[in-house]
């Protein structure tokens, strides 16, 4: 056999061993690294996608929350206004009642004072009449003797 062909045969055999070695020990770590990289990138992308979706969710949730809060606050304001109106109305009614009461009391006072004044006046008139009469007749008039007459006079005033 020609030595070139013979050495080629040997080289081909050892090349086959080399290919086997490469396929068994060198290729797998390489493909593993490649697959790990693909996996990592895929995971990163899906994580980013998830985060994006979560952000969108949170955004819509926040918007809903804000809307609810706004509604609630307007309700609270409405109620507060109602309450204020009620308080105002009640205060007004109370004030009016108080005024009426005070007015009534004042009127009562006035009436009783007028009554008393009238009584006093009546008495004074009686006395003055008696004094006047006694001056006229120059003598003492017994008030008790003319009491009926004086009372009549006082009542007429």
């Amino acid at each position: 056999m020609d030595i070139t062909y013979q050495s080629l045969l040997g080289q081909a055999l050892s090349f086959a061993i080399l290919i086997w070695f490469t396929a068994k020990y060198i290729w797998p770590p390489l493909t593993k690294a490649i697959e790990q990289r693909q996996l990592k990138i895929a995971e990163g992308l899906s994580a980013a996608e998830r985060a994006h979706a979560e952000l969108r969710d949170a955004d819509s949730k926040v918007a809903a929350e804000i809307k609810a809060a706004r509604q609630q606050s307007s309700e609270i304001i409405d109620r507060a206004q109602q309450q204020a109106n009620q308080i105002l109305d009640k205060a007004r009614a109370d004030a009016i009642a108080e005024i009426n009461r005070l007015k009534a009391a004042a009127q009562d006072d006035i009436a009783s004072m007028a009554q008393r004044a009238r009584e006093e006046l009546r008495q004074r008139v009686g006395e003055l009449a008696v004094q006047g009469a006694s001056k006229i007749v120059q003598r003492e008039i017994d008030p008790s003797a003319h009491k009926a007459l004086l009372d009549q006079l006082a009542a007429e005033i």
Partner: protein
Amino acid sequence: MASEPQGGLTEYIQHHLTHDVITLGGGGFHLDSWIVAAALGLVFVLWFGLYARRATSGVPGKGQAFVEIVLEFVDGQVKDVFHGNRSFIAPLALTIFMWVFFMNTMDLIPLDLIGSAVKGVAGEQVAHNTHFRLVPTADVNTTFAMSISVFFLIIFYSIKAKGGWGFTKELFTAPFHAHGIVAKTLLAPFNFFLNLVEYLSKPVSLAMRLFGNMYAGELVFMLISGLMMSWATFVPGVLVNAGWAIFHILIIGLQAFIFMVLTVVYLAMAHEHH
């Protein structure tokens, strides 16, 4: 070749170590190294370019993931060594790494494959006169061509970083610094000589390291092939050949890596001031 069993191995090795030389412009031109190197450079450019063109920002395919891993690895290495704008240095490092790696990988292809193919097609006489060495990096011309290119880049970056005057000044004033005009003048020749040695040693060591490794590797393959020429040592020859090839996987990657890292280190040094 077969007619001389005694001188067989010597002739075999001599034959395998002869380049396919053509005369070009009055000098010898190693056509085989040039063709293989150019073809492999083209393979690299097309391969990586294709994936770069088709790259998606989504989940990459297996091919793109591989290219990305290589790219990230090289960029990480450059980032560790070179602090500055990497927009040129990183692609340069990637090109050097992949190209040298491809050229080194040619070492794993069976030694007699091409010769036997030529013999099978064109006959013994043509095969005897045809020389084709498949490993461009086992050709000192290829490695020197690369390292001299790197050398020019070193000079270019030194001048770019320090300015023409700063670069020239540093040639004469570093590494030995002195004060006073007399001392400076005295030290200038020594500084210049040291810098000259330093600058020239870079391309020489870069080229010789790669060439030496690949040439020695190729030579060992040839010697092992010698074992296979006799049936008595055929089986050990095959096993040793396979073992050397497996070990060589380490060497081809390592040498490509070393060439790349040293290039980046030299360029990083060019940016530094003494």
